[in-house]
């Protein structure tokens, strides 16, 4: 019996260890899958005509003729929407209509003055036109159909009047007729509601299709284009079709979301069929095409990373890495050589080793504080530089942080060079320096390279040390080492929580992190493969 229990415990234990490893792998998968999958959609996706327009305008990329053809085709379908909206708007907007009538009346008055007619007739015509205007305005402002009809009828009585023929006043009748025809299907009492609903409808349409070509170009780039991607377009289309409202269903409980078709707001009007029209013709209006947007990796972005890619961030990360490598590489290798070649019981060596361990354990944010206090506020100004965060200070801070990684990896590499190499070289009469440079270093190079790669991946991924020493979320490309720079790491932070525009474009959010992870992983996998090769080689000997 006891044996069975022991046996079972043993099995359970083994199962637990296996489970923990499975969980470990699962964790990696759970973290990576959403990030990489969604990040991937920043580059490969179904782009609409709006995307191609944006690319042409902002990045001067794409086939103009082709785009013009596509644009003409899509405008064919869009025109109906714009026309309908315009017409509908005209009739519910009493103020504009009244202004228009008054304007015409004024022009007519001036026209009469020029005509040189007898005073009495002039007075009569003026007052008549004023009367017509007033009646029209009553009709426009009224929400009672009966009053509208009466007034319009009164106005139209004068339509055949010979005195108004071929004058500007004739326009008044045209307006009146149009108005009478158009409002047949409109519930005038709901004019205010219509106006509000129409505004919302228009706003969503702009988000979906881009601004109406008959209105002025918006000042901000992000408002100039509609939905650039089909999945976003579908989301917006859904918003357009369904009206979401929060309603209280039971007292004392949170409200619940209720969706109703937005078309119901416009029941009976000419806007109502537009909803079905847009839904059915969305493909014709947006012309979606499979897009491979590799330029994501080189494009700069508009504020908030709304459009464009991660070009400046990648460049900044590379610059930062390069600059810190300039410091890490020599110091790291020399320190490693010193540690590996000198007797290890030395007191000083012990201190150095302890310093390296301490350095490796210092929290990254403390490096940030140190970089701010030492490099930004003390060292750079000491040499006459500007006392502000910049690439140089960030690189120095990162170099201090990454030094232990480099030293440890290189030391291990130098130590793993077989003693026989060194002895052979020394035996042939080479000096210590020559032996090190010509024999040991080349033999240890793959290992050192692994260390360099790991340091690069560390530098590229660290965020906390550069928060106050040189990273910015958005800005121009750096011109020299005294400019701050965008980086993938800080950009990932900013795009996740610091920017509202970015949360509207999740593909760009995930794209940035995915780029960072991909970069770091490529470096790490290279290091892993290289290390495997070295260990195989060493075993072979």
């Amino acid at each position: 019996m006891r044996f069975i229990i022991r046996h079972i415990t043993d099995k359970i234990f083994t199962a637990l260890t296996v489970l923990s490893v499975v969980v470990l792998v699962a964790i990696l998968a759970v973290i990576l899958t959403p990030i990489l999958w969604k990040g991937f959609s920043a580059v490969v996706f179904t782009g609409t005509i709006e995307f191609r327009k944006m690319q042409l305008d902002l990045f001067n990329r794409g086939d103009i003729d082709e785009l013009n053809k596509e644009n003409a085709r899509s405008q064919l379908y869009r025109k109906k929407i714009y026309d309908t909206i315009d017409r509908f708007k005209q009739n519910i907007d009493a103020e504009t209509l009244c202004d228009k009538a008054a304007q015409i009346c004024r022009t007519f008055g001036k026209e009469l003055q020029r005509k040189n007619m007898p005073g009495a007739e002039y007075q009569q015509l003026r007052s008549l036109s004023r009367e017509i205007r007033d009646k029209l305005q009553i009709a426009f402002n009224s929400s009672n159909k009966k009053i509208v009809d009466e007034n319009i009828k009164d106005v139209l009585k004068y339509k055949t009047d010979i005195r108004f023929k071929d004058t500007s006043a004739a326009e008044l009748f045209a307006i009146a007729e149009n108005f009478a025809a158009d409002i047949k299907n409109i519930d005038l009492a709901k004019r205010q509601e219509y106006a509000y609903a129409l505004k919302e409808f228009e706003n969503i349409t702009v988000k979906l299709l881009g601004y109406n070509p008959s209105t002025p170009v918006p000042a901000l780039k992000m408002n100039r284009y509609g939905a650039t991607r089909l999945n976003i377009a579908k989301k917006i289309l859904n918003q357009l079709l369904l009206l979401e409202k929060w309603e209280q269903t039971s007292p004392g409980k949170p409200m619940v979301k209720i969706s109703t078709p937005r078309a119901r707001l416009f029941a009976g009007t000419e806007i109502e069929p537009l909803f079905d029209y847009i839904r059915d013709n969305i493909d014709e209006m947006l012309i979606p095409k499979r897009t491979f947007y590799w330029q994501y990796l080189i494009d700069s972005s508009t504020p908030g990373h709304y459009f464009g890619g991660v070009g400046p961030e990648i460049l900044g990360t590379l610059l930062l890495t390069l600059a810190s490598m300039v410091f890490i590489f020599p110091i790291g290798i020399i320190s490693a050589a010193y540690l590996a070649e000198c007797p290890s019981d030395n007191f000083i060596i012990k201190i150095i080793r302890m310093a390296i361990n301490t350095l490796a354990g210092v929290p990254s944010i403390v490096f940030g504080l140190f970089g701010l206090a030492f490099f930004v506020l003390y060292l750079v100004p000491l040499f006459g530089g500007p006392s502000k965060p910049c690439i140089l200070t960030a690189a120095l801070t990162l170099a201090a942080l990454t030094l232990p990684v480099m030293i440890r990896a290189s030391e291990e590499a130098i130590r793993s060079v077989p003693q026989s190499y060194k002895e052979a070289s020394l035996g042939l009469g080479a000096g210590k320096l020559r032996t090190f440079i010509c024999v040991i270093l080349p033999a240890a190079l793959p290992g050192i390279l692994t260390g360099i790669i790991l340091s690069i991946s560390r530098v590229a991924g660290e965020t906390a040390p550069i928060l106050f020493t040189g990273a910015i979320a958005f800005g121009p490309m750096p011109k020299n080492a005294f400019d701050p720079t965008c980086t993938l790491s800080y950009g990932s932070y900013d795009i996740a929580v610091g920017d509202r525009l970015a949360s509207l474009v999740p593909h760009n959010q995930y794209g940035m992190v995915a780029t960072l992870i991909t970069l770091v992983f490529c470096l790490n996998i290279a290091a892993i493969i290289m290390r495997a090769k070295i260990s195989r080689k060493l075993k072979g000997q």
Partner: protein
Amino acid sequence: MKKNLFTMVLVLTAVWVCNLSAAEKTLQIEGSTTVGPIADAFTEAFSQAYPDVKITVTKNGSGNGAAALVDSRCDIAMMSRFMKLDEFTASVDKGIMPVAHAIAMDGICIIVHPSNPVTELSLAQLHDIFTGAVKNWKELGGPDMPIVAISRDTSSGTYETFDHFVMRKDKMDASIEYVSSNPQVHSRVKTTAGAIGYVGVGFLDAEVKGLKVNGIMPSKQTVAGGTYPLSRPLFLFTNGYPALGTISHKFCTFYLTEKGQEIIEAKGFVPVTKY
């Protein structure tokens, strides 16, 4: 011949000098994270109109903006509050005369999750929520739900304004969550049923619900007119009034142009010229 050569050299030198001075045109802008997006968008507009001017916008908080102006490290300081007395005296001591340009109005909106039936709070109720005296929506006529109050971090200008208008010297409760940006407040409130937070009026959208404060809904009219109790002007500070015609002058008066106002409105603030 000689004369021609001389003229040529002169012209070339002039061109070179012009180029130099053109390249020299830089504008350092530093300060509030709230004003930052406006400055960013102005920069975007300026980069089209004046491609040779290099404008750097650093968003590191109103306090740092003031400090940078005092140390002449920037040309324009963005501030979401007026200069404090000590900042003002410090700059005057250094021979710098801060001039304020109120470029836009910003209202601090109280936002809750859209499922929250509460539509209105008074300043006193807000005060109670953020001091921790009220912990459940039930006490405010809402559903039985714990209140998750979210604040901006204590060094931001938005916090200072909220502190000034609502807290009135009282301390915020320890259970208040602090986040480091307006968008973060927005996204926390958007995803949390019992949350309440405060953001600039530009962050009010369909995903969250803005509350009336003292019975007044935050809108363009109420914010610009000052009837909404939590409104504040946003400033650009320069050293003296910028010399007319300089790029700095153009930047500081850009808010008066139609395009500038369109940008301010697009960024969710209220143009000061539209009362």
